[in-house]
Each structure stands twice: as C-alpha cells, then as structure tokens.
C-alpha cells in the first residue's frame, strides 16, 4: 500500500523525523488561509498523488506571493497530472500540500528497503540528494552508502556513524547529530509499520543546521496489513484503477495493462508467462490476472466479469493448469459468468491438470462458444489468429 506524501510526513512528525510545516487542502478556497497559517513566503505547493516524477510534470511549484499559491493550487486541484509513471491519461489531483519554504544548504538522499539478497533491512544514504537515485547508482556508485541492519541488535549508533561520516565534506556536528537521529527514527518507522520502502529525497540540511525531510515516500508491506490496521484508513482508492479496485475486493491479482487480449490464469508465474506468450504471438495483453490457487467459482466469475468490463479487450485467453484450483471449478465459473454477461469477443481456453476432463466436459456441455487449445503453443497461435482477424475487421 502506498501512502501520500502528507500521510508519510504525519507519521514522520510523530516519529521524531522533522518535516516542514504544512497544510493539506482539497479545495482552492483553503489556499489563502493556508498561507496565513504556514510561514512564508516562499511557499511550496505540492500535488498529492502516488505517482513519481511529479516535480518535472508541474506537480510541485514554488510561490512567493499568496496569489501565486492560489494560482498554483488552482492549476493542480481537480486536474490530471501526467508524469512518467502515470501513463498518458495522467492521474487526477485531489489534494494539495502547502508547505513553508526553507533555506537549504545541502540536499541528501536517505531511504530504507529490504535487501533481498541479504534478507535484512538496508539503509541507503547519498550526498547526491534531490536527484534520481537510480541514475546516481549507475553513474556514481561511490556516492551511494549502504548499511545493513542486524535484526537482533536493530539499528545501532555505529550504523549511523558509518553513513554520516561517509559524507564529503563532513556536515557540522549539529547536522551530523540531526542526521543520525533521523536515521535511527527512520529505522523505527520502517520496522514498526512494516514498510517495504521509506524514501526521503531530498533530506535537507538547512542553513541553520537543521535536518528536515523535504519529501516523503512510503509503502507498506501488503502482507502485513493484518497487523497494521490503523494504516488501512490511509489507503486512497481514488489513486487506483476502478477495475483493480474491484479485483482487490475479491482477492484477485489483477493489473490493467495497455493491450487488448484479456487473460485469466491461475498462478502468478504462469500468468506472467502467459502475458509473455501473448506478446510473442504479436498481440498485447490487456491485463495480468492471477486467480490464485484457492479460487472458487465466485472468484472465477468475478475475474471474468472484470476482464469483460475492459472495453478494449478483443479476445480472451484462459490458461489454467489445475493444481489446487481444479479445472471443473474454473469451468463452472466461466459458464456462470457467461450466463450473466454478453461475451462479445472470442474465447480461447487451455485447460490442463487436476480434473481436466471434468472441466472440458462442463465447457463442452454449456452453450458457450470457445476455441480449445491443447497446449500453450496452440493457445498462442489461436490468439495471434484472433488478433489478426480483428485487425482485418
């Protein structure tokens, strides 16, 4: 689950990580009042959307007069913001954060992630703050410092010293202390809230020596939501694709993509491989849909409905290798869904594994029209045929 900047900053504030003074607004009427509450000028107006690349897309503006704040807010609220992460339609800005401007001496980068290879949390720190960290890692790897955290001891002061005293030039003693303080608290936030990522870019040292998180990016481990219930209210469904929202409700792994071949598969790996097969057949998948191992008839029905709701879909490929999910369950679900929905596109079905004969029988006996693929290669060929047919039409 992704948090908004303002939500992450609220958490930071409560956790001893200094952030700029700020006010969240969701209508432009509130903009003028915000300039009265928040110290300034200057003020910084920041669109609250999950997508990255906001700055270059006009989602962050500096204002020197209250009227500039109002103008900036009006240019964002309710408008789509198109960044390199949103796709061409962009994402609508519903909330804007107005913050005090700070006198910045130095911009740094700080984040915490799980190091998968070492199976421990790792803190990443760089003096190249405010930049795209992937680019820094590629071009100047020596500027990226990394501390692995031993989980039995937790974050130790020496971890902080290894990072802070790795800066060149060294920060002032006050700033050094401030940095170590932020690091220790960042680790606490990370483990206490089951984060999968916390990123502060830039983390700034102000002219008066304070260390402040100017930006904040935070994701929570979806698997840990059962014990982070108080974070559930921070979820912003407006940021999500409506079909993905619907899928989430039924515990389906659905991701909308840009193509026109709908796919329903059991198992994430096979679903990815099926997308790849579609692509190799010269078509583009319209979605990733893993109905999972424990899918029941209702989930299959819902998955089918979700695929059909996507008007771009020109053909559907069902690829099921029955293991825990039995082929007869799948078949019944498809038939049930077909009964409720008008299937306006060709359906290609490839069934294999547990109870495959029963499944084929159920499909055959229904009045559903579909093409049978005996294996994946055949399925790919059939998809390609359908696509070329469609294109001819």
């Amino acid at each position, binding site marked *: 689950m992704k948090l908004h900047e303002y939500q992450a900053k609220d958490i930071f504030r409560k956790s001893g990580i200094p952030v700029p003074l700020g006010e969240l607004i969701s209508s432009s009427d509130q903009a003028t009042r915000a300039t009265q509450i928040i110290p300034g000028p200057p003020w910084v107006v920041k669109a609250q959307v999950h997508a990255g690349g906001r700055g270059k897309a006009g989602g962050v503006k500096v204002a020197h007069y209250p009227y500039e704040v109002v103008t900036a807010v009006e240019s964002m609220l309710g408008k789509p913001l198109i960044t390199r*992460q949103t796709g061409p339609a962009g994402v609508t800005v519903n909330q804007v954060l107005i913050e005090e401007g700070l006198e910045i001496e130095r911009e740094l980068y700080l984040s915490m*992630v*799980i190091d*998968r*290879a070492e*199976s*421990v*949390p790792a803190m990443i720190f760089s003096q190249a703050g405010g930049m795209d*960290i*992937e680019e820094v*890692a590629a071009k100047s790897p020596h500027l990226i410092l990394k501390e692995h955290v*031993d*989980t*039995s001891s937790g974050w130790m002061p020496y971890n902080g010293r290894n990072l802070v005293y790795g800066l060149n030039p060294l920060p002032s003693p006050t700033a050094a202390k401030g940095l170590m303080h932020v690091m220790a608290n960042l680790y606490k936030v990370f*483990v206490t809230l*089951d984060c*999968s*990522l916390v990123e502060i870019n830039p983390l700034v040292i102000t002219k008066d020596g304070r260390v402040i998180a100017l930006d904040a990016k935070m994701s929570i*481990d979806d*698997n*840990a939501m*059962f*014990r982070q219930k108080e974070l559930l209210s921070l979820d912003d469904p407006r940021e999500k694709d409506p079909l993905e929202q619907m899928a989430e409700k039924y515990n389906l*792994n659905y*991701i909308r*993509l840009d193509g026109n071949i709908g796919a329903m*598969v*059991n*198992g*994430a*790996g*096979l*679903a*990815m*491989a099926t*997308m*790849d*097969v*579609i*692509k*190799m057949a010269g078509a583009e*998948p319209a979605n*990733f849909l*893993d109905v*999972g*191992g*424990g899918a029941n008839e209702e989930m299959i029905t819902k998955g089918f409905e979700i695929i059909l709701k996507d008007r771009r879909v020109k053909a559907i490929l069902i690829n099921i*290798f*029955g*293991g*825990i999910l039995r082929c007869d369950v799948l078949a019944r679900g498809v038939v049930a869904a077909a009964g409720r929905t008008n299937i306006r596109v060709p359906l290609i079905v490839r069934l*294999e*594994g*547990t109870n495959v004969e029963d499944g084929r029988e159920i499909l055959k006996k229904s009045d559903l029209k579909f093409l049978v693929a005996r*294996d*994946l*290669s*055949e*399925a*790919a060929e059939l998809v390609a045929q359908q696509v070329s047919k469609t294109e001819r039409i």
Partner: protein
Amino acid sequence: MSILLNSESRVVIQGITGREGAFHTRQMIAYGTKIVAGVTPGKGGQEFEGITVFNTVRACVQEKGADVSCIFVPPPFASDAIMEAASAGIRLIICITEGIPVLDMVKVMAFLKDLDAVLIGPNCPGIISPGKAKVGIMPGPIHREGNIGVISRSGTLTYEVVDQLTRVGLGQSTCIGIGGDPIVGSSFIDHLKRFRDDKQTKGVILIGEIGGTAEEEAAEYIKAEFNKPVIAFIAGQTAPPGRRMGHAGAIISGGQGKAQDKIEALKRAGITVQMNLGTLGRTALEVMGQDTARP
C-alpha cells in the same frame, strides 16, 4: 538419489487439521509420502487419517522421528511455525503459506542462520522427488521419475514445465519451488549445489521471474561451478515496472529485477534461455539429449 527428499523422509504436517492442510495431507498420503505426524496446538492426541496429531513439533520429532515438515499455517502464525520446526531439529522445512510479512521472514532468516535446517518457501508449491515422495501442493500425476532437476520461483508455471518434460519423456529427479516472495529460505544456488552432487540428476531446468537478482546470482554460480546442462526460463518479460505481478517478489523496483537483465546474465553464463514457454519441453529434449530421457 534425489535431493533433500526421498522415500525415507518422515514428514510432519504443521496445520494438519486446517482446510488446506487436511486436503493436501490426503494428497501426499495418496502419493506415498510417509506422513508420520501432524501438529495443531490444542488438538494433541486427536487422529487425522490415522495420523497422530501433536501439540508441538518437538513432540513429533521425539516420538515419531519426524525430519521433514510441511507448513500450512496462516500467514500471521507461519514464521512462528517455521522457527518451531527449526528449533525442534527438523532438517527440511517446506512452507507453503503465502502472504507472510517480509519483516517476519527477515527474523526467520536470522533465526535459521545458526541452525542447519533447509527452508523451502514460503509461498511455494513444495518439493517432489517423483516416485519417492511429494511434500507440497503440486499435482503428483504430471511428474515422472527421471534425471532432470527443476528449480522454480513459481507454482503453476512449474507444473506447466514439468508436464512438458514428462510428455517428451524427460522424467525428474527432484522438483523444487523455492517460492515467490522477496525473501525465501533457499535460493537457486543452494539447490544447484545439491543437484551438482546428485548422481541421478543429469541436467537442470531453472524457472525464474522478474524481481530481485536471484537469477543473476545463479548465472554467476553456474558459470563458475556448475557442470551439467541448464535451461532457463524467465517469466514476466512484458511486466511493467513498479507493479507487483501477483507474487510479492515479482516486482521490478529501483531499476532492478528486469527480465531482460536476467536473460542477458544467463546467456552470458552460457546457459540456454528458452524464450517461448510453449516449446520448452522440446528444447529440453534437444539440450539434455536422449540419454537423459531414460530414467
């Protein structure tokens, strides 16, 4: 000999009385796996399909000589179950559970460091040594005893591959699903080492996917130290970055984990990379040769 699991393995099922645990225990028994005990805290003394249920894994080890454990415990309690098994002296732990928080796995991995237990999973189909025993949720009948080792981060994708292998006449020594989570108990390399030392195994199929760098590390290892033929397949070539592709571990993030990087690393290591999943079985037959096809 297969690796890790054979017909002598004495298996305990943690969570034997749960829905999933009960269903798959029956399947495993049907396959011929030696299930010697079950664990459901508070239900000690009961029986399930003729198997005694205990309150603790320790009791299963002491009273039934269990040495392998299969875990069907819900995510909030799964890390506890893994540690329980390891501390009780179980040498091979297979955790099927999907959805364990990453930080729980961080703790588990620190815990396991000082013990010599092998953990397979979590979020995996398990392990099968065809003709000997299966511990997990894979459909038994698609497998056939033979000389190919299979290691995979995926479940159904593995079934697909195994099915193709069996259809072209290539049986399997042992098939292992290492799991689709960001942190899993054992890696491609851990099991490649075992396949290297296993006389039955003549070649290995490695099924990777986007996310992490496990395939790149495996490529390095194979290039330096592995002397049997390997065919690799990587799922997720068309996956967009930043989206979690079903598996918690299948996500391209921070510029890492792209399928293309993995494929290139594997190719650089001289490994046959199969691009078209549909014809993997045929490729395997060509690469592994006819010799391998005879068990």
